[in-house]
């Protein structure tokens, strides 16, 4: 097939091939004829074939129009030389498989590169000819490919001639004064041009294109299940540890392996046990050392330093302090009860004068040593008063006339706390009592001691201790020398009948505003009608007066642990220990049981019974010239009984922080500090506080660094002493040591009792022996005489007569 070679075969520049060649397609017959077959005679590497002009012309003559060379007939004829070059165009660069080079120069040029290549190879061997072979490129005319149009477009040229303007003005106008006037822009139309904002669409761009990232993930599938919700059930398991039966244990014990194991293990164990025996590795010797040293510190350290002293010129003249009480919550506030320093007779004589001088309880605060902070007015001299442990604003006091008084100081608490400024008012406020007990139902003698029941307890009408659910102290116990013990309840009495309730309600409603003397209405329900809940009158053989009961109510949680026993101190120095539960006798009336134990060891009035704060069953009693320590449960006697001292002991109190220390106040104003671990036959130190007898001692712990001791004397002065470090910090294992000491003492008591028993028994035995011996001797004497008489009378007959007796006599004569 002949290809259409091109419209303008030779001479146009747009043909794509140079002028001097002509693309040709040769048929296979022509190829065979001329010996230029594909991939046979002519290959890629050797595409050149020289054809003779005459051969081509011959072919043209032979095949005329059919010949492949017919389009180039004229050119072939015009060819100057004899040989033409036919190049195999394998890659169809010029459009056909072959092309014929039509000019001699072309032929040379085609063939030349081969030579040139060869020449280059030769040139490589001769580097000196390198530059000669390279020709500088000759400049050729620029062929436009259309880029000059773009450049023309880009260049900036004047599209029209430039305009010229000339502006002129009269010279006169330059520099002339200018007169400005105002003109409202809105007056004239078109006075102003508004540039209203408008929404320019340029800026509301719509994002047509967006870059997105896509990530392929594996297939996800979400699914859900629901478990059926059955109701929750309680489940429990009970298990038991596995144990071996006796036989199995025996088996094991007998096995050889066990023996072997034991022999191995014991060696290791013994090492460890002995290590522990030798020394306790984890014991901190350094710390322990410091505690022991404190005991040997200089005497100066153990002195009780005077911290402060309170006397009031107004109120404490001619008066003595009967009781001290620290305020339980406000630190630095202490209350003292002032009583007249008169004996009973003097009281009667001066009763009119006394009525005008009211009795008071003074509140002192450390911040003000001159003026008392608060005064509580009492109907009569107060012997004992106590703050309510659960509500420190309630104070109960017991008076000389047998009444029990209640105060409520909630209105004045701020003043006590010292939150108000000192300069505000200098006069101390007087608080009147808010309730007194009824005189008929109260004690018939001065009430000597009063105590709150702990907040977990209460006692029913029948005297049965019950649990107090309200968590507040509601009951009080009082005692008086009329040998009665009374329990009082500060709650309003429950009403039995409805009518009574109405009546009472009316009464209460009638006087709601009555509030004389600014007394709070806290205990209005009790005022003047207060009756004791029940009373206990222990049956004692002679009727002594009860001076002061004291039982350390343990504050235990359940009424079962409430100690039903208490110590009484009748007036003549006896100590009574009894159970205060009421029992029913045959007629159904309640009566108290007989006291279980009575002891007479103090030779004077016993004024103090105090439980130790560390040991629940150790009690200190102070009276007369001695003091004694008792242990509950040991009924033989006191476990420690001090020797008689020179002066009467007036009061005693245990130390709050050291189990072995207690303080004894003396008649001559001395304060004795007894340390049971140091000395038991005399006080470890004595210090003179005042010249008058000491009436009350109360220690108090302000902070861990400051322990104070309040001591009051007969002259009405309150001394506050600071307890030094040696007396307030316990030494190591002090409680244990003291406990051991007490146990030893108990053992001693028991031993003594046993010995005493033994001795009495022995004595009895000995007496019996002696008596028997005497009798025997007497008898033997008599027998001697009888024998002699018998002998005198006639032995034989006597012998015969009384054979048995003779034997008896004879043996005794031996």
């Amino acid at each position: 097939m002949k290809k259409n070679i091109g419209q303008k075969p030779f001479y146009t520049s747009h043909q794509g091939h140079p002028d001097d060649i002509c693309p040709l397609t040769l048929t296979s017959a022509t190829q065979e004829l001329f010996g230029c077959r594909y991939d046979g005679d002519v290959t890629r590497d050797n595409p050149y074939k020289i054809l003779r002009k005459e051969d081509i012309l011959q072919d043209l003559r032979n095949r005329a129009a059919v010949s492949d060379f017919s389009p180039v007939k004229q050119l072939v004829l015009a060819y100057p030389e004899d040989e033409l070059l036919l190049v195999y165009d394998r890659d169809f660069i010029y459009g056909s498989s072959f092309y014929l080079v039509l000019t001699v120069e072309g032929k040379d040029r085609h063939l030349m590169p081969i030579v040139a290549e060869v020449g280059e190879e030769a040139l490589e061997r001769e580097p000196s000819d390198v530059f000669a072979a390279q020709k500088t490129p000759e400049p050729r005319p620029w062929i436009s490919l259309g880029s000059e149009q773009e450049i023309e477009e880009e260049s900036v040229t004047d599209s029209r001639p430039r305009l010229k303007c000339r502006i002129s003005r009269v010279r006169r106008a330059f520099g002339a004064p200018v007169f400005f006037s105002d003109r409202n822009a809105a007056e004239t139309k078109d006075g102003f041009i508004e540039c209203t904002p408008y929404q320019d669409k340029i800026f509301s761009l719509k994002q047509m294109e967006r870059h997105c990232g896509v990530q392929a993930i594996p297939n996800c599938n979400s699914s859900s299940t629901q478990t059926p919700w059955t109701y929750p059930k309680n489940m429990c398991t009970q298990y038991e540890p596995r144990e071996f039966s006796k036989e199995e244990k025996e088996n094991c014990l007998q096995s050889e392996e066990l023996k072997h194991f034991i022999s191995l293990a014991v060696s290791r164990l013994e090492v460890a046990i002995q290590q522990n025996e030798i020394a306790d590795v984890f014991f901190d010797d350094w710390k322990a050392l410091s505690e022991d040293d404190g005991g040997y510190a200089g005497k100066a350290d153990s002195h009780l330093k005077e911290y402060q002293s309170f006397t009031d010129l107004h109120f404490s003249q001619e008066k003595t302090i009967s009781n001290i009480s620290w305020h339980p919550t406000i630190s630095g506030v202490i209350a003292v009860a002032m009583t007249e320093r008169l004996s009973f007779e003097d009281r009667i004589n001066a009763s009119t004068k006394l009525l005008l001088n009211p009795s008071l309880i003074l509140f002192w605060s450390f911040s003000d040593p001159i003026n008392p902070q608060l005064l509580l007015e009492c109907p009569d001299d107060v012997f004992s008063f106590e703050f309510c442990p659960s509500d420190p604003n309630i104070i109960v006091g017991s008076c000389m006339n047998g009444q029990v008084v209640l105060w409520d100081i909630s209105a004045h608490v701020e003043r006590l706390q010292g939150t108000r400024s000192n300069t505000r008012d200098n006069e101390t406020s007087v608080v009147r009592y808010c309730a007194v007990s009824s005189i008929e139902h109260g004690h018939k003698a001065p009430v000597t001691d009063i105590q709150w029941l702990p907040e977990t307890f209460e006692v029913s009408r029948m005297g049965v201790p019950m649990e107090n659910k309200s968590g507040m102290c509601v009951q009080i116990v009082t005692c008086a020398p009329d040998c009665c013990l009374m329990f009082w309840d500060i709650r309003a009495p429950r009403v039995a009948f409805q009518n009574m309730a109405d009546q009472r309600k009316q009464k209460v409603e009638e006087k709601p505003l009555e509030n004389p003397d600014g007394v709070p209405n806290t205990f209005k329900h009790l005022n003047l009608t207060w009756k004791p809940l029940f009373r206990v009158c222990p049956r004692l053989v002679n009727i002594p007066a009860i001076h002061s009961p004291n039982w350390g109510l343990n504050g235990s949680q359940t009424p079962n642990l409430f100690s039903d026993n208490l110590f009484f101190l009748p007036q003549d120095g006896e100590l009574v220990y009894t159970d205060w539960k009421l029992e029913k006798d045959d007629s159904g009336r309640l009566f108290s049981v007989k006291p279980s134990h009575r002891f007479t060891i103090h030779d004077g009035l016993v004024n103090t019974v105090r439980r130790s704060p560390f040991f629940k069953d150790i009690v200190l009693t102070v009276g007369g010239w001695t003091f004694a320590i008792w242990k509950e449960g040991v009924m033989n006697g006191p476990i420690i009984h001090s020797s008689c001292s020179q002066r009467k002991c007036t009061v005693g109190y245990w130390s709050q922080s050291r189990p072995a220390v207690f303080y004894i106040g003396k008649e001559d104003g001395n304060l004795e500090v007894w340390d049971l671990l140091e000395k038991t036959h005399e006080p470890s130190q004595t210090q003179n506080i005042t010249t008058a007898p000491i009436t009350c001692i109360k220690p108090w712990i302000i902070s861990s660094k400051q322990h104070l001791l309040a001591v009051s004397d007969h002259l009405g002065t309150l001394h506050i002493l600071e307890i030094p470090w040696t007396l307030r910090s316990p030494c190591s294992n002090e409680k244990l040591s003291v406990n051991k000491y007490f146990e030893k003492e108990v053992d001693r008591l028991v031993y003594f009792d046993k010995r005493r028993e033994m001795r009495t028994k022995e004595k009895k035995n000995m007496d019996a022996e002696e008596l028997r011996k005497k009798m025997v001797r007497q008898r033997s004497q008599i027998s001697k005489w009888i024998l002699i008489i018998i002998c005198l009378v006639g032995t034989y007959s006597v012998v015969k007569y009384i054979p048995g007796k003779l034997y008896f006599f004879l043996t005794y004569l031996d």
Partner: protein
Amino acid sequence: QAEVEETLKRIQTHKGVIGTIVVNAEGIPIRTTLDNSTTVQYAGLLHQLTMKARSTVRDIDPQNDLTFLRIRSKKHEIMVAPDKEYMLIVIQNPSE
């Protein structure tokens, strides 16, 4: 068997020793000087602890093994001598 008794008695009479328990490999007490409930409690708990301690020691070094375990508490010291088949527990109060 008398030897075993004697040895155990000897340990018990050391100063401060509160109790001695012999336990088998499964934690079942074989012989004890304490009451039953205490024994069972000690045996169970200490058995587990000893197993754990032993496994700890062996985890760190498989060629090692636990020979003795001492637990010191505020009040007393518990000493455990473990073995393949038995375990001897002694409770001692060192500060007496």
